[in-house]
């Protein structure tokens, strides 16, 4: 079925390299008027780079683009905006302490200058007009942008795309959305999608998200990228398994999650962690138990509160303070819970690796010994370089960390290897419980498999794992037992033995 319409945007053979590493390879992409397309793919597949290239933030090392029939080669984002291409960034490129209308026209105020002064009145009127036009009349252009909730700020950024497009005489803008749903709850997702559908006859949208379900709901056409290449283009209707197949080259693979190594944990096994009536913030009355050697997975949509549960166990402020967390029989205190949990031999692999998990400017050795400094001191209080090196080498071998050596700075390792160092840090301490939040986020396929193997190793040694993850397949494949949360509450518990794994649809049903 060929498309008789004329594309408004075309990318041909675009490639991009960063410091010798190819992130995009001969990518072809077309955007038609009034359509919503998606670009799917794993982390590192090149989707975000492609998007940023369309927005002028990255320049292609090879290949070309045309926009509205003309050659298109923006030097910077502002050029793209002037041509009618805008981005809705994950955290919005809006200055929070400026008013909404000020953000709309930031750096474009020259057209509003009268007698050397900026004519705010005209800006406000124009902003108000457009907001009403887009059905966003509830947004007051005179209010501070930062005072609006996340969802409204997204709307503001979308509105900005339309406002500036009209400002530069572009009838039909292209709005690029870079993981807009990553940090919002399902209510907001629904609102966002409804808005996008409402605007579709005035603009074209390109969407990147990790949630396959969203592509299925929203997009007319879907591109799939893998390892920097465009590997598939699919029209509606979509089949999730086909998308997944194109993304990773396999359907859920029992081998991938090493399900054959999954232990059977009897009900009589010792309870190592007990959470009772946890509440506060987004969480309400969550209770569960973790047994020795078990991998307990908690899943749910973003915003359901599963992260907060992890934070409450390890004492990472702010965390829900109501209820109790008991480790091996002893409750954890409210104040100083962080130190207490570490003392109780709990390790934590946080979601934000770069800022919470690793210290990029310190070496592999320094990162590995960070939680176990006492074990690398010969003289009390002084670190023995030899012992530290030995510890690092031991773990480099054990976890198969790809690095030039204990002295390499962590910023130079790949995401997967960095994550291994985070795990090594806790292994160096011999922990009993490991709390992991999205352990394979931003990690390449090969390293993911190794990390799964590691988790099985730990379980065999008697370490209990609390797994928080947005990756449904990972949740199902790895866990002994699965808990699903929704709106801060625990809504279901489902055993997940290797021979009777639940289907995704079943769990998704509880999440939404």
């Amino acid at each position, binding site marked *: 079925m060929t498309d008789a319409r004329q594309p408004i945007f075309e990318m041909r053979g675009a490639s991009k390299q960063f410091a010798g590493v190819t992130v995009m390879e001969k990518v072809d992409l077309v955007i038609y008027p009034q359509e919503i397309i998606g670009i799917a793919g794993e982390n590192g597949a090149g989707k975000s780079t492609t998007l940023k290239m369309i927005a002028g933030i990255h320049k292609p090392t090879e290949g070309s683009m045309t926009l509205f029939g003309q050659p298109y080669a923006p030097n910077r984002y502002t050029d793209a905006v002037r041509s009618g291409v805008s981005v809705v960034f994950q955290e919005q490129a809006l200055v929070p302490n400026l008013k909404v209308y000020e953000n709309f026209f930031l750096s474009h105020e020259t057209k509003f200058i009268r007698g050397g002064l900026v004519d705010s009145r005209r800006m406000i009127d124009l902003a108000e007009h457009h907001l009403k036009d887009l059905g966003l009349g509830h947004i007051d252009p005179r209010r501070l942008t930062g005072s609006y909730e996340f969802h409204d700020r997204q709307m503001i950024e979308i509105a900005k795309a339309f406002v500036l497009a009209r400002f530069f005489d572009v009838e039909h803008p292209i709005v690029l959305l870079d993981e807009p749903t990553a940090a919002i709850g399902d209510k907001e997702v629904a609102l966002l999608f409804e808005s996008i559908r409402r605007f579709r006859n005035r603009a074209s949208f390109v969407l990147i998200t990790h949630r396959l379900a969203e592509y299925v709901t929203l997009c007319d056409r879907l591109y799939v990228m893998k390892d920097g290449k465009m590997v598939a283009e699919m029209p509606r209707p979509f089949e999730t398994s086909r998308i997944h197949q194109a993304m990773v080259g396999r359907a859920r693979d029992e081998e991938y999650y090493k399900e054959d190594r999954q232990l059977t944990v009897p009900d009589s096994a010792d309870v190592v962690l007990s959470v009772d009536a946890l509440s506060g913030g987004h969480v309400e009355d969550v209770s569960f138990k973790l047994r020795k050697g078990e991998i307990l997975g908690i899943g749910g949509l973003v915003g359901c509160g599963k992260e907060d549960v992890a934070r409450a166990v*390890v004492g*990472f402020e702010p965390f829900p303070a109501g209820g109790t967390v008991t480790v091996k029989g002893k409750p954890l205190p409210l104040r100083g819970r*962080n*130190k207490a949990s*570490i003392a109780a031999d709990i390790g*934590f692999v*946080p979601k934000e690796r770069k*800022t*919470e*998990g*690793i*210290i*990029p*400017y*310190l070496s592999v050795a*320094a990162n590995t010994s*960070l*939680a176990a*400094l*006492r074990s690398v*001191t010969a003289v009390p*209080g*002084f*670190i023995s*370089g030899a012992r530290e090196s030995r510890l690092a080498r031991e773990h480099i071998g054990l976890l198969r960390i790809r690095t030039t050596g204990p002295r390499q700075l962590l910023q130079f390792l790949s995401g997967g290897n960095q994550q291994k160092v985070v795990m090594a*840090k806790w292994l160096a301490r011999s922990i009993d419980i490991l709390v992991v939040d999205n352990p394979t986020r931003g990690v390449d396929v090969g390293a993911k498999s190794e990390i799964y193997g590691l988790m099985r190793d730990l379980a065999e040694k008697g370490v209990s794992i609390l797994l928080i993850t947005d990756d449904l397949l990972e949740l199902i494949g790895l866990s002994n037992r699965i808990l699903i949360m929704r709106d801060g509450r625990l809504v279901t518990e489902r055993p997940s033995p290797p021979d009777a794994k639940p289907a995704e649809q079943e769990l998704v049903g509880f999440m939404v």
Partner: protein
Amino acid sequence: MATFLGLYRSNRTLVGVLLPIALLLAMVIVFTLLNERFLSWINLFNLMRQSSILLLVATGTTFVLLMGAIDLSIGAIVTLVAITSALMLRDAGLSAPVVVLIGMAIGAACGIVNGVLVVYARVPSFIATLSTMIVFGGISTWVAGGANVTFRNAEMTWLASGKMIWQFPNSGVWALVIFGIAAFIGARSTFGRSLYAIGAGATAALLSGIHVARTQMVAFVVSGTMCGLAGVLLVARAGAGTARMGDDLLLDAIAAVVMGGTALSGGSGGVHRTLVGVLVISVLKTGLNVAGVHPYAQICITGLVVIIAVTLTLDRSRLAFVK
């Protein structure tokens, strides 16, 4: 030229270490050419004497900078301790060792004040230490009563200018020994490692069990104590406590640390590197003196050289934004 710049950019760390040393050598050569007396023993001892105070202060402040904070009150602490020490010597007739201990204690107390503000009241270190700088300065002028405080104490003079080891001035010896200990602690102790961790990744450090609050507190106290010791040595050398005598140390100390290679945002560099920075500034100052440059011009030149040196050695890859 282009290749030179290219080499410069790709070997940042090596350049960062070598540049200040190269600068140092260049200055020594220039000054010796201007006046051959520059390389005399007398002048070298003079250099040691002059730089010992700065070395102590800069070393102490390296600890604070490493963890990503800043202590603007260091000059004021030196002045405060100097004046109170002078008063104790003149009015209370205390002996030198006692004065040294009390001086360090006062410095430590100032450090505690700074630490409490930053760690427990969560005031950004820039503002906290700016305020304490004002307060300590006010206390100094109040205590001094508006006049210089002179005293005569042979022990104190020996402390600074005596010669325990051959002809080296004592103040230089003390400073180097303490510097050595501090450098060792900075590079090899768990405390030092914690400083780097906090400066380079405070959240990750906290989550890994590093005692952030305790480490920060200790760093401020160490900085204050070193300033206290510097204050005592300063007054020992000068024989009198004058208003604002330590205030100039602030810029010099920060510049010395940054020139040595410790990033202003913390997390990299080290106490051991500060020595080079201190030497650069001290050589510059003594050199200009020996070369007979007008005192007013000296001040100008110092300010400019500091800016240039910092420009060259600053590790910008660590700064997301230059604020």
